[in-house]
């Protein structure tokens, strides 16, 4: 059963000048943790706003829990929880006041749904009288999640919840999402960070308003196998330049200290070692590697250019 169904959605801004979403279709299954992975400007926020009834698509239709996002506006607003990309709570109200306020907005009380937020709330409870504007990124994010959860939504839409948050808080946040999923809440989350893709059941890679791929992480990577090597040498700056200049190489991109080099299918790693030796490099290290989701995303981007 699908909780979210998107069919051929198109959205433009400024009288059709800017294309935000271009014929996007996908489905999110009930109880799934679904990730929209793509850079800033890919159209993730537009998609969220359409699904949360904040925007009307130019064409196509979308359903949340069987309700139409245009016609059943008020019904959808009862059952979804939404955390916008920007921190959107009242900075001049305390943690407790924010939470109570949003509970009232959704016609409920904190006490009634405390079991849902308890695990998260206990972490910020010691500071419940502190104003939201004075909280660290991680705490703000936890508070925002509590506020989005307080009315026991069926579907949770989280737009870039981990932006601006340190790795410890990020990890804790994803652990929380796992537990919410276990309670049967369907979660749609967006992120520009490829490494977070592995925490989702299925992901959609999105770029410039189009979905490039949609499946489980493993399936997507497997479908786009590439002849990939990690390369390192003593003089990294020259290594980078030499690899870029070689026209036989499909692509070469820095991945931390190493360069990830994609070769045409029939090429072997000896080709790279020989080429770099000829260029006078020392300390050459070449090893064949399996692509990560980031390698795959780059490959898809290059293919779609």
């Amino acid at each position: 059963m699908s909780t979210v169904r998107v069919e051929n959605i198109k959205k433009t801004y400024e009288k059709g000048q800017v294309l935000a979403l271009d014929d996007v279709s996908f489905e999110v299954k009930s109880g799934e943790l679904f990730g929209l992975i793509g850079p800033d400007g890919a159209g993730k926020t537009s998609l969220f706003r359409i699904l949360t009834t904040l925007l009307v698509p130019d064409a196509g239709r979308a359903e949340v829990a069987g309700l139409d996002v245009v016609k059943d506006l008020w019904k959808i607003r009862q059952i979804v929880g939404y955390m916008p990309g920007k921190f959107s709570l009242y900075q001049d109200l305390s943690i407790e006041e924010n939470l109570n306020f949003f509970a009232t907005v959704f016609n409920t009380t904190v006490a009634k749904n405390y079991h849902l937020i308890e695990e998260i709330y206990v972490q910020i409870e010691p500071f419940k009288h502190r104003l939201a504007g004075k909280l660290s990124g991680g705490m703000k994010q936890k508070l925002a999640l509590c506020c989005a959860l307080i009315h026991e939504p069926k579907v949770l839409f989280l737009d870039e919840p981990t932006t601006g948050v340190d790795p410890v808080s990020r990890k804790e946040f994803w652990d929380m999402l796992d537990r919410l999923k276990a309670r049967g809440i369907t979660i749609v989350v967006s992120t520009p960070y490829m490494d977070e893709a592995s925490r989702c059941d299925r992901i959609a890679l999105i770029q410039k308003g189009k979905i490039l791929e949609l499946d489980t992480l493993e399936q997507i990577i497997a479908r786009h196998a590439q002849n990939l090597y990690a390369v390192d040498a003593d003089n990294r700056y020259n290594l980078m330049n030499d690899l870029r200049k070689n026209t036989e190489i499909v692509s070469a991109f820095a991945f931390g200290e190493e360069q990830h080099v994609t070769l045409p299918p029939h090429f072997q790693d000896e080709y790279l070692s020989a080429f770099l030796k000829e260029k006078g490099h020392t300390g050459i290290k070449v090893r064949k590697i399996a692509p990560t989701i980031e390698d795959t995303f780059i490959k898809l981007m290059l293919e779609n250019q």
Partner: protein
Amino acid sequence: MTKSVIHTEGLTRKFGDFVAVNAITFDVKEGEIFGFLGANGAGKTTAMRILCGLLEPTSGKASVAGYDVYRQNEEIKKHIGYMSQKFSLYENLTVRENIQFFGGIYGLTRKELREKTAVLIERLGLNQEADKLVGSLPLGWKQKISFSVAILHRPKVVFLDEPTGGVDPITRRQFWDMIYEAAHEGITVFVTTHYMDEAEYCDRVSIMVDGTIAALDTPSGLKKQFQVESMDEVFLQLARGAKRGE
């Protein structure tokens, strides 16, 4: 051995009873890309403000580009560049106007400005967009332009505050290529971030926990030391022990 561009010794900054930066000691070499990491509230921002000459330390020594942070903070400001994701360019000025404005701040002459602007626009491949408003450009281009602007006056050190969040993997790598190039030309790059994948691109990385430097090495050295696969895990191991922060 190349010389140090940033040097600190027992650098400390207190706010009342709170010790934001607790006796940190480190050196950054010329042309190095130095990652300065830490969780929210670990003291990163305070330390960087001291090094930028914006905040006086409580005790300890620090010098940037050979200038003392206590006495010569005005000199420091002339010899550093700064780029942050939050503020970098004026959205309602064109690319060309932004470049000229920021160049002007650092006292470039009219002629220098015109030449440098032309060269820069050419190099960024922005001939078509030079007279468009910055606000209308994609985030990735803004980042590239603001980095170029930050090093327009050839500073000794450039400070980058979470420079590459949110852009696509290719644009991000193009951005790092620019950083490598600047470093190759002798500009020292000081990156603060809490994204570990950014840290992987640095020559050396320091991780601050509770106001002190808990680890400092190359990314591969750190991974070896903590016997883990990624910088993320290094960070998690270190930051878990943090007492303060939130």
